[in-house]
């Protein structure tokens, strides 16, 4: 009897071990598509940031923390992901406040257009990298599309097990550690593809009201920042292509909301010239997103604004923080000038 019980316990332990290994093998490694790795990189640098950017691709392709440090001495991190929905940004912020209390949080408003869960793939890329916490569970619950299940997030192999027949060398190489892809959340794009269809605008919509769910989470985000004594700054990145069009009507609603609640809201779409962005050289995908050259201009411009309007002109950092940032700046230039 005793032997049986010991055998049973051993079997359970071995099973658990095997599951951990197999899970490591089958989860996607995103080596061809770095966007799936952004969320997890935050935890290596968490703590002591002056500014946290949250939002979708328009933040992680527009703001370069290393550059912001170099030019303005402001430390920051971008917690953005492809199609990061408002509630995902909210829970990401909740998660962030567990590690640090930044002076300001900058939220890019484009995601306010979505009031419903959108795509499993984006959910996975945004959420899988989060450390486990109540915030992550809530984020998953709010984001799941119809056929998804919470347990498949807890044990990702339940979802990805069929990759066992399609494993590549990378799956073994990155079994327990992911490749580092970003510079403090900024994903570098060096290509240049000029914008060709500047005249094209977004299609007419039936209803221009921003979804209530999205606005509710914006409100929650505001309250969360208020509680922590952090300023919430709303922005709309300067890019405005027909594929992700920012409508006047939406802008008005956000403007009104910001006015009501005394928040700063900057829509950079009309400031393109002032910022100095040239859509012939500063975009890598014909105007949808900025490339590194455009992002530098944007970052510099925004850094000035932070200093002028939001009291970032007199911040000080310890020697250790400064040297860590200088190393990041070096790393940044290494990739940029490669």
């Amino acid at each position: 009897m005793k032997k049986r019980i010991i055998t049973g316990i051993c079997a359970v332990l071995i099973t658990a071990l095997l599951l951990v290994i197999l899970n490591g093998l089958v989860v996607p490694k995103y080596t061809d598509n770095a966007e799936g790795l952004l969320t997890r990189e935050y935890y290596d640098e968490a703590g002591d940031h002056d500014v946290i950017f949250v939002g979708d691709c328009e933040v992680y392709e527009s703001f370069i923390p290393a550059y912001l440090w170099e030019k303005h001495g402001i430390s920051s991190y971008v917690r953005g992901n492809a199609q990061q929905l408002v509630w995902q940004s909210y829970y990401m912020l909740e998660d962030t406040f567990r590690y640090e209390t930044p002076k300001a949080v900058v939220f890019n408003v484009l995601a306010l257009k979505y009031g419903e869960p959108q795509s499993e793939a984006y959910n996975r890329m945004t959420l899988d990298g989060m450390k486990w916490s109540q915030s992550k569970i809530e984020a998953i619950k709010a984001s799941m599309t119809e056929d998804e299940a919470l347990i498949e997030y807890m044990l990702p192999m339940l979802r990805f097990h069929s990759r066992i027949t399609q494993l590549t060398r990378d799956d073994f190489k990155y079994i327990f550690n992911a490749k580092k892809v970003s510079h403090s959340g900024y994903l570098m794009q060096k290509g240049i593809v000029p914008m060709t269809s500047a005249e094209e605008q977004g299609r007419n919509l039936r209803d221009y009201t921003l979804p209530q769910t999205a606005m509710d989470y914006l409100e929650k985000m505001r309250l969360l920042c208020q509680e922590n004594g952090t300023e919430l700054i709303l922005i709309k990145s300067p890019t405005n292509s027909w594929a992700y069009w920012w409508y006047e009507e939406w802008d008005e609603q956000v403007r009104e909301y910001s006015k009501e609640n005394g928040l700063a809201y900057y829509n950079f779409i009309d400031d393109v010239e002032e910022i100095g962005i040239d859509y012939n050289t500063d975009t890598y995908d014909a105007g949808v997103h900025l490339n590194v050259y455009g992002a530098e201009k944007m970052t510099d411009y925004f850094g000035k604004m932070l200093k002028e309007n939001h009291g970032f002109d007199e911040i000080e950092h310890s020697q250790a923080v400064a040297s860590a940032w200088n190393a990041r700046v070096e790393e940044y230039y290494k990739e940029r000038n490669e």
Partner: protein
Amino acid sequence: MLFTSYTFIAFLCVMLAAYFLTPKRAQWITLLVGSYVFYAFAGAWYFVFILFTTVSAYIISRLLHRVKQKEDEYISSVKDTLGKEERKAYRARSKKKRFNILLWGLVLNFGVLAVLKYTAFAVTNANNILALFGKEAISVPSLLLPMGISFYTFQTCGYLIDVYRAKVEPEKNIAKLALFVSFFPQIVQGPISRFGELHEQLVAPHKFDLKNFTFGVQRILWGFFKKLVIADRVLVAMNTMLDAPENYKGAYVLLLVILYSIQIYADFTGGIDITIGIAEAMGIRLAENFDRPFSSKSTKEYWRRWHITMGSWFRDYIFVPISVTRPMLRLNKALTPKCGRLVASKVVAYTARTVTWLATGIWHGAGWNFIVWGLLNCLVIIVSESFEPLYKKFHDKFPRLTSSSAYGVFMSVRTFLLMSVIRSLDCYRNVPLTFSMWASMLTFKGIGDIFSGGALELGLGVSDFLIIFIAIAVVFVVSKISDIREKLYQRPVLSAALCVTLFISIIMFGAYSVGYDASQFIYNQF
């Protein structure tokens, strides 16, 4: 709640824990509550029907019992004074009375089943006839079929008949009867249990027993393996072919027919393994429903080994009663002088058999395909029975050939193919289409196609076929080892190793959480 859903697995874990944590005397109450919770997941509205069956069965069984008691009391009180003939007459009268009560029970319960299950089918067919006369069609009602109604109705009616036949003592406690009707592991797909075999076990207390529990869990895992690794994977290819049958003719039909046999075997026996395993873990032994059916050498044998509890239900409650009813006896008597006793008995037996198979077909579903399926099975059995003397002669003539194991394999393969082809009726679910597919199958067109890459365009890749093949081989080997679990129990380390392997295989090679396409995660930038 599907067996293969996360919800069910969670439910099962809670249920098993609750069962053994409940004080022994109340264990059956835990089971009843669990069964009703399980049932509630399907829809609260369905409770009306299962409660109706429970209450009506309770009342009818009590009535039957009372009449029987009175009868026995009377007979024993007048034993010495009443003559044999008078006693017999009294018994006959009482039996008639009981029969009428039983009839009420059967009509009520089968009536509900019939109305829910067959109204749409009947109306559709009536409309077809009306259309012939240019009359307007009646709208086809859409009635929801309560979960497991075919199974629990049959199980409960079997109970009523057993009470009528005085084979079992009826249950006095309606809640206990409710458990027999609704026992959760078997309500969705059987096996159809007999009251005499199951009921005592359900209400009896069960101590946690490591051996039972291990066996139960093993069996559950085995069921999941068959269902998830084999059945659900094969299903992908089948669905491709069934979505556009016109594109998959000739040899593809044969492929489909064989794949369906593999799929339904793995799915059905796997499901029953889970059911039996759950019960076993709690110390309850359910009737086996399969006995290596694909090794059968004849259709008749096949039906003794496939879906056994259903076959025996139809035998005991339909075939036998019909073949010994008075009209049948009279028919037999009338025919005997004219055409001999053998032929007369054949007429009777074949009539009863045809009715039985017709009922079996209808029970499977409301559709002509099921009716034709039932009748074809019946035809095959009758024909092969009629040829039996011929076979016997053949066997006597070539004893060396016919007793060789190769001949045995030949007979098994023949039976397998025959049954598989007939079964494909419920694949296409359309009788004329099925017949035309069978005709095209005989041309074997496109067989080269299948082997030169066609098979890989059905939604399954090389690795899928490999997994299916290996899994089938494993199932085959396991089926060949008798008493495998007892043998393994003597070797706990090996047994544990196999269980771990089985569990990991299910997780890694199960075709669950489908719809996941690796390519959707490899895409270009937002």
